[in-house]
């Protein structure tokens, strides 16, 4: 569904990603893991058009989208959820959901909001609250819900469980699994909660210093020697 070819990207002069070849299959969860600063977020940003691409290609449904501006990619069905600042704190929950469906017409927007609330019924009772007053977990629910409103087929989630209690994190993991199994969405997931993320993922990539050091089935990565060394590095 999505693939990058020899992608070199970074910020201005700062080269972060080196020759990254990655692919995301339809209706699968593809997970990207790696140490802090290895370029996981940068990979998502580069795909979405928020980082500088020096060379290489991003291809979505056999269409070259390397130079497509972000708001066009939203229209094509790609939703990106940033790691931080992923909701508008000065707007209400309802307004956040509405703005998420900016490119949709009225009918469709209503349907999509209903769908997002079906996945996150917790938000139904918070519609008039300002997003800035939500708890961390609720805010993360809202952030993922806004991605759902965007009528996306591909969701790119950057650490959706960061800073959440294990209980809340598990709820989020369950919802991500549901999105794949019940709703047929494709997910590109960046996670710090490596073990749990690999358990729910189909395929996985490991990035170190901006290079792909492992590519393959998620369960294979768990038993891979590089992974063991990486986990030791984490401790």
């Amino acid at each position, binding site marked *: 569904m999505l693939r990058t070819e020899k992608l070199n990207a970074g910020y201005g002069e700062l080269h972060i990603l080196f020759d990254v070849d990655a692919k995301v299959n339809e209706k699968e969860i593809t997970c990207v893991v790696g140490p802090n600063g290895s370029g996981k977020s940068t990979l998502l940003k580069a795909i*979405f058009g*928020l980082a500088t691409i020096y060379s290489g290609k991003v291809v979505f449904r056999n269409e070259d989208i390397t130079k497509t501006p*972000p*708001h066009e990619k*939203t*229209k094509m069905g790609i939703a*990106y959820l*940033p790691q931080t*600042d*992923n*909701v*508008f*704190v*000065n*707007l209400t929950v309802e*307004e956040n959901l*509405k*703005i*998420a469906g*900016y*490119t949709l017409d009225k009918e469709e927007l209503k349907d999509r909001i209903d769908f997002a609330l079906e996945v996150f019924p917790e938000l139904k009772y918070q519609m008039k609250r300002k997003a800035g007053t939500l708890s961390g977990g609720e805010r993360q629910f809202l952030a993922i819900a*806004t991605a759902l409103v*965007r009528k996306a087929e591909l969701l790119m989630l950057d650490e959706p469980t960061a800073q959440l209690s294990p209980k809340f994190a598990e709820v989020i993991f369950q919802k991500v699994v549901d999105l794949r199994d019940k709703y047929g969405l494709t997910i590109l997931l960046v996670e710090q909660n490596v073990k749990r993320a690999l358990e729910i993922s189909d395929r996985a990539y490991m990035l170190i210093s901006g290079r792909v050091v492992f590519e393959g089935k998620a369960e294979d990565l768990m038993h891979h020697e590089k992974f063991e060394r990486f986990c030791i590095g984490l401790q």
Partner: protein
Amino acid sequence: MGVVEGALIYSNLLALLALGLTLTYMTTAVPNFAQGSFAVFGSYIALTLLRLFGIHPYKSLPIAFVLGGLLGAGSYLLILKPLIRRGANVVTLMIATLALDLILLGFRGIYAGILGKITRQPCEMFMFSYLVKPVFGVPDILLVSSLVIVLTLLGLFFLLYKTKFGIALRASVENPMLSEIMGVDVEKTRLFSWFLSGALASMAGVLLPFKQEIVPATAELVIVSIFASSIVGGLSSIAGAILGGYIVGMSESLITYYLSVVTGNAGLLVYGKVVSLVIIVVTLLVAPRGLAGIRWRKVIRWRSGR
């Protein structure tokens, strides 16, 4: 026209101008020194339509709105947007608007001369005060200027809180990057804010000659008061800008009037802008983030001794 009536009219117009200045500052972070010129542009539109076609200035408000909007949008598209794209900082942008202001001043001077030749009447200095008629015992300009600001605020409230585009505009102010991710065309909201700012300024400009004499350089005096209003309001708050407009407008008119009466020196009236400058300095020293930045709850608690 009474002193208080005059002060109210002036405050209405100042609120309109400060609102525009604040709006473009919020969306693009450009302190627009040409806002006064946008206003006097409207004054000259009204003068032209009046002298050439006999159209009453009140009737030229819609035309001034559209043309002023185009001036605002054009300034952004042709000057500011290219600079922002090249990574210009706020000082560069500010100087660019100063340059724009001086360019517009030059054009106004030339245009006033040409219009004067065509109409055989001097256009370098003019007023519409002879057109003012009393309605319900007050000058009609007081009603018209109040109506304009009330309708503007109602319209703006509806736009910002009830329409999708308005929510997108507020979202873009808070987090342009996330808005872009959501599929909002952030550039469009910026362009719109410049259009609206120019349009409101131009309408204020149509009404200003009812209250005071206009010369091409009036813009460069008015800009001081506009900035004072906006700064008092905190530069990034719409409600603050409106409140600031009234505080500055009333102080400027009433304080100078009071001083001229007390000292018996009518010449003092010329120094109205000093009041605005003092207000700017005091605000920046005491409450640098303006009225909107003051934590009122804290102040109230402190006053009640808790």
